[in-house]
């Protein structure tokens, strides 16, 4: 049974939501690009700098130890948030993009050889395409692409047909940043594991919207960004099963990630430090943990249920608009709606909605191959967070209707 969230109180935690743009109340519907930050996250950053700032892990002094404990406590918070087994499985990165690049290098260089294949899908963000293309060009591997159905879901029959003894990795989004489709990642992982193929899940669009349990999914790797889940910019997470992270070589070299260095040879530190060269973002980690604790205080099930209400309300109201075309109509969707109306260019509609105080995203959303598959140049995208309201949806609908009349 889900509990009702007190949205008005929640909105008060986000100072930016009470600002105006062009003398109109801000209606922020670009949450899939980045979410706004609650006070507790910004206060956590301030607290680290004002009260416990010192470089971590190497200091014997009081502050360094305090900072180290805070950073490692943050790692444990991340572990618990995604239900990992051990803190050794949590590597801090700069974000989803860096996490995928890390794997494309560390995993790709170790396990992929000429003629091998990696499976991705048509709906991937460029962050889950380009690193694999770069690996392809270095190693002579092939990329196999899962096509989509008319509803904007992964074609699972086609997926199964792509799996072969050449497949070295499957890497797919948990949730599409354009279509909103929630992919059947558990089923994908089961099918891949049946053939001993590991699976990487790009969770950038999932972690802030639903409970994620990496053990229940049995994901080998799961990656996400802090800034899309109410946390700070510049920090993200690579979860990897310990058995994998143990055997993968480091990605970056430097301080922090070593056990012993001579000019002849370096031995590397244990997990997770092997993958965290240089001074880690011990401010971002603590603030990310603050964001996770904040989300946990409401319960991810409750957040998911409320956002689903928003999605259904917005979808139903948008469908009533003449000439409305929604891209991504899966019954299993996160709170993302990509759309076009008649032949109105997304730039035009986005520019006019902006003047009405409504922030939506326009363009290809870093998913140009998906745009090609849909045979369009771009869409408008409204994406909702749990601080959005039904009144804001009504304002979006009124805004779209007003803009349509201008053409």
């Amino acid at each position, binding site marked *: 049974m889900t509990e009702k969230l007190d949205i008005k109180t929640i909105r008060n935690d986000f100072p930016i939501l009470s600002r105006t743009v*062009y003398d109109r109340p801000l209606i922020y519907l670009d949450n899939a690009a980045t979410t706004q930050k609650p006070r507790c996250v910004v206060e956590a950053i301030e607290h680290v700098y004002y009260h416990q700032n010192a470089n971590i892990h190497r200091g014997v002094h009081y502050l360094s130890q305090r900072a180290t404990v805070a950073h490692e406590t943050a790692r444990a918070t991340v572990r618990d948030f995604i239900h990992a087994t051990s803190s050794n499985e949590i590597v801090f990165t700069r974000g989803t993009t860096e996490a995928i690049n890390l794997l494309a290098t560390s995993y790709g260089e170790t396990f992929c050889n000429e003629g091998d294949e990696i499976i991705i899908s048509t709906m991937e963000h460029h962050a889950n395409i380009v690193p694999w293309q770069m690996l392809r060009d270095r190693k002579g591997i092939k990329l196999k692409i899962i096509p989509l159905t008319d509803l904007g879901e992964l074609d699972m029959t086609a997926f199964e047909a792509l799996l072969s003894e050449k497949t070295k990795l499957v890497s797919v989004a948990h949730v599409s940043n354009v279509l909103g489709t929630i992919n059947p990642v558990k089923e994908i992982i089961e099918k891949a594991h049946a053939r001993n193929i590991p699976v990487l899940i790009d969770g950038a669009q999932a972690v802030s919207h639903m409970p994620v349990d990496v053990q229940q999914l049995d994901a080998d790797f799961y990656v996400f960004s802090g800034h899309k889940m109410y946390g700070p910019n510049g920090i993200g997470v690579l979860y990897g099963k310990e058995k994998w992270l143990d055997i993968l070589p480091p990605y970056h070299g430097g301080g922090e990630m070593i056990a012993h260095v001579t000019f002849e040879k370096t031995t590397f530190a244990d997990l997770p430090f092997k993958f965290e060269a240089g001074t880690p973002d011990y401010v971002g980690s603590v603030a990310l943990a603050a964001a996770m604790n904040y989300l946990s205080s409401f319960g991810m099930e409750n957040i998911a249920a409320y956002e689903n209400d928003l999605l259904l309300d917005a979808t139903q109201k948008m469908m009533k608009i003449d000439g409305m075309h929604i891209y991504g109509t899966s019954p299993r969707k996160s709170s993302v709606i990509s759309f076009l109306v008649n032949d*109105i*260019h*997304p*730039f*035009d509609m*986005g*520019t*006019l909605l902006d*003047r*009405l105080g409504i922030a939506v995203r*326009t*363009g*290809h959303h870093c998913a140009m191959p998906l745009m090609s598959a849909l045979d369009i*140049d*771009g869409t408008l995208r409204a994406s909702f967070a749990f601080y959005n309201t039904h009144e804001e949806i009504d304002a979006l609908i009124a805004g779209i209707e*007003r803009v349509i009349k*201008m*053409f």
Partner: protein
Amino acid sequence: MTINEKQDQIVEAFEEYTDWMDKYAYLIELGNNLSPLDPKSKVNQNLIEGCQSRVWLDAEYTNGIIHFMAESDAVIVKGIVSLLIDVVSDHTPDEILNTDLYFIDKIGLKEHLSPTRANGLLAMVKQIKLYALAFKTKE
């Protein structure tokens, strides 16, 4: 009319609109009234690729004056494009090279020429000057 007289005329026309939505409605009208680009001009060679919208710009040079033709896939951009080519068309390369396109700023559309807008307009202004320079050096 000189380039600046044309610019002042546009600034005056826009002063009538106090509400931003009305300004944009006017730009949409201008965009819709811009005659479509001849297919022989609407080619990749004349395409100015923006991340959000695209602009095609072509120019003809006869009897010492330049005539510009342009189009965009977005109507608001097309409206701004129509103002720009009206202002600079049918002038000599020198006149165009020495001009300061202040009207954009004065009618409040400067943000549309910022590099972050990625709508091709900033590149279009540069391209207009490049055409003028190219035709001047041809002489």
